């Protein structure tokens, strides 16, 4: 798999995918996109790097366990609901702030919620993929022969 082309292009593609994932997340409320799709793209970025390096290296680079990030995502989603609940509205009601004027970028609890979704989807898919790769790395060289003989 480790062809020179992949070696050169993978980091670039992964970086582009990463930026795209965030862009898709942020534009999601008004244009195609959202936390779910963005999260899948984010996971694709991680997997792209996974083709290049061992999963142990990727884990070391990420510094934080993807599943912890997923937990943070669910936490953010729950928190976004509590914000409105704490103000006497029903749980998960949307709250909107316009720090940059009425036509400017808006901050809202649905956005926070979507970021939570993004984190969960991206990190869970990435975690599963990394775990699968790690298992493959561990079984190492004997793997291919084993698959053929059985």
């Amino acid at each position, binding site marked *: 798999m480790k062809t020179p082309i992949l070696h050169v292009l993978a980091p670039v593609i992964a970086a582009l995918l990463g930026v795209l994932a965030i862009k898709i997340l942020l534009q999601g409320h008004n244009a195609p996109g959202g936390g779910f799709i963005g999260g*899948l793209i984010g996971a694709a970025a991680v997997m792209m790097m996974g083709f290049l390096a061992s999963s142990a290296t990727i884990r070391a680079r990420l510094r934080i366990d993807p599943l912890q990030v997923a937990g943070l*995502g669910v936490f953010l*989603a*729950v928190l976004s*609901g509590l914000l409105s609940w704490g103000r006497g509205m029903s749980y998960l009601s949307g709250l909107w702030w316009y720090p940059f004027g009425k036509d400017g970028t808006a901050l809202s609890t*649905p956005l926070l919620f979507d970021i939570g979704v993004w984190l*969960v989807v991206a990190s869970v898919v990435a975690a*599963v993929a990394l775990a699968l790769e790690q298992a*493959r790395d561990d*079984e190492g060289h004997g793997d291919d022969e084993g698959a053929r003989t059985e």
Partner: protein
Amino acid sequence: MGGGGYEAAMLRQHSTAEPSSEKRRADHTEIYPVCRDMQTRTIPITVDGRWSMADGQWSMVDGWRLLAYSIPAGGVLCLKKGKPDFGCPQRLLVMAIHDKTILPHTRSSRRDSFAMLIAIFCGYGLAVIAPWLIKWLGRRGGLIAAFVPAMAFIWFASHIDMIAHGDTVLVRYPWVDFYAIPLSFHLDGLSLLFALLITGIGTLIFVYAAAYLDGHPRQGRFFAYLAMFMSSMLGLVLANNAIVFFVLWELTSVTSFLLIAFDHERAESRRAALQALIVTAAGGLAMLAGLLILARTAGTYEIADLIKLDITAIPEPTILVVMLLLLAGAFTKSAQWPFSFWLPNAMAAPTPVSAYLHSATMVKGGVYLCLRFNPLFAEADAWMPLLMVFGGVTFIISLFKAFGESDLKRVLAQTTVASLGLLILLIGSGSAIMIEAAIVYLFAHALFKGALFMAAGSVDHGSGSRDINYLGGLAGAMPITAAAALMAALSMGGMPPFIGFLGKELMYADPHIFLILPVLIGGNVLMFALGGVIALRPFYQLPALFSGDRSSPPEAHEGHWGLWIGAMILAIGGLLSGLFAHDLGTWLLAPAIQAVTGTDHAKPISLHLWGGVTPALVLSIVTIMLGLIVLSLSDRKRAWISRRALRINADSVYDLKLAMLIQLSKRITAILHTGRLHQYLSIGLLVPGLAIALGLAYNPDSMAPAAPIAGIWNDVAGVQSGGLYGYEILLMLLIAAASIAAMGIAHRLTAILILGVGGIPLALLFLVFGAPDLAFTQLMVDTLLLAVLALILTRLRVDIADVRSGVRICRDGAIAILFGGSLGAALYAATRAPLDTRLTDYFNAESVVSAHGRNIVNVILVDFRALDTLGEITVVLTAGLAIVVLLERRRQVHRGSLAAKE
């Protein structure tokens, strides 16, 4: 003027009652408790869930708008002022509409209502901080924690005066408005008595546990469980809403489970905990069914109203079913025969738990239920016989069993079961004096049994044993514990001047008891003898299985003051309450009795230690004489009596049933869960495929083409929409080609790649038809799935080529065709039916207006249906965790096998 006018007037009265405070607190939810002597009527509900009155429109009354959805008649009505803007802080006015006067005197202030919530639920707050409290402060942390139940005790005690004057406190707090379930609590005489026992004994238990579990690594968790239990139990005895009552009932079962299983390394503890949970929770579910039937019949969920129902107006079978279901709950919770087996086993819990939950408080839950509903069922035919038979049988059987036990705690547990049986028996006897006796005995039992348990724990702690055959002569080494145990046992045996004596006197005071007199005398004799065994055997006699003249074990010593202070206070309490019985009766017990008998006016009761030479006194003396005789019999004779006693071991029946259940589920699992992915997939595709196909075959009209000739083609080509474009047909052909090609390829990885290729034109097709989000998702899922599958396939040691036999290929093909075909047909049928666009229209209209988003798909995901999404991402997280854990485990196994090879 009809009911509408009356209620309108009442509403007006409320909305104008406090004009100034209303404006000031516009942002807060406020509770208006039921007002005094409210006489209103129920409101009929029309089909569409709105409210209407027979005379006059009700949607707007004096500026108050109705916010009620579907509320059973007699439920709670939520009113809201102003526009129906869900986004704004609301001001709810919650009122109770009852079809009859609630209580003669209901006094409540807002201060009360909030304070009561705090008093009830303070334990949950304590549970949060308890682990840190213990971690930082150790034993002192436990003592500080004891302040919480102590404060609650003081709060409840401050209401004694008010309750004794016939007032009650009723508070309501909005909870689940949609189903009209308020958090409503009712403090009356009976609730107050229980609440004082729970918080008072709770305080002592907290102090006791701080010493008993000193240095235990999980002591913080223990306090958290204990505090949660206390709040649940308080809520249980105060709850006025049937649903709230049920929830707290089950919460006490759950916290009891956690506490019994506290030493979870021991299999015995785990089994006992599970057993207690299964038995009591199952009973709780039966009770829920009973409560629901009763509430539906009555049209109200408020217990204070339920128990005032006229039982003759309800069909007899209904009332019988309700009674049996409620009794199922009560008998399991209060360990009545044949459900009594779980309680002795629950002694696997640490002693503070046994003293608190399994003698003084939780097991009285069933007794509380019987007392609470006694006004309702007192007129029913089956009530008295059921209670008397089960109570009486439990009373006698468990006393005999107690003689066969040698573990102090198990002896005490059996006597607890007996006492609970006695209480049920007394309630079932029905007469006012017997109810009085039940309340007095309940109070006495909580004091002496709590004291005895704590003394038993102290003995265990100081001597290392609880076996009465091994212990002996400890009075010298542990004088305070011995004194406390002796006083408590005297109360248990019904000796004057302890409070237990008064309970026994009252039992004998009813002139109509000749039917149950032998049971009562026999039981009390055995109880007296057991009290002697518990209090004399370990402290004053020589150990039965130890020769020598010294105390056994020799190293016994009195423990930390926390270990005996609780037992001592309770034992002295039993003495003082006997000495000042008259005051106790007036202030505390009479209101409780009044609540149970259902009379409106408190009948003053008089409790006196000396009431002259009455038949009751003579019977008491006879009881004590007989008790002394039984006590003087040797241990062997007592064991012999116990063996002669009825031996139906429900414990083994429980094991048998549980084993059968587990066996059954194993068999079913063996059939369904073969571990063969191929089979799962076949079943997973076959069953829905068949279901859809049968559904369509049953309803052939849905598939009928619009025109007989070439109708299908016209539909597919979309005659109405102007036909398909060439590139659309090309995309469809690509999908079909990829699918067919995948079938012909033997190599698995290649086949999956080809299928993935088929997904891309599908995504394009979505894009063409105006669903960019769907296209995006399809593309990403397709790509990631391919990558993940490739990863899995390279490491699963499967054959890389398809090696299925021809028959199996045909069978799998048939399943695939059936599933694909029926799904396609269902889609076709769905598109032929007129599309219901109500939801689409709503989302289209509201997406920008109320959710500020133009991407409707995203708005639905993160706003309109955010709760669904929250559930989904939680599932995703859980699934991810499971996958990673499974892979990790496999890796470890793999490593292990590699290591073994080397």
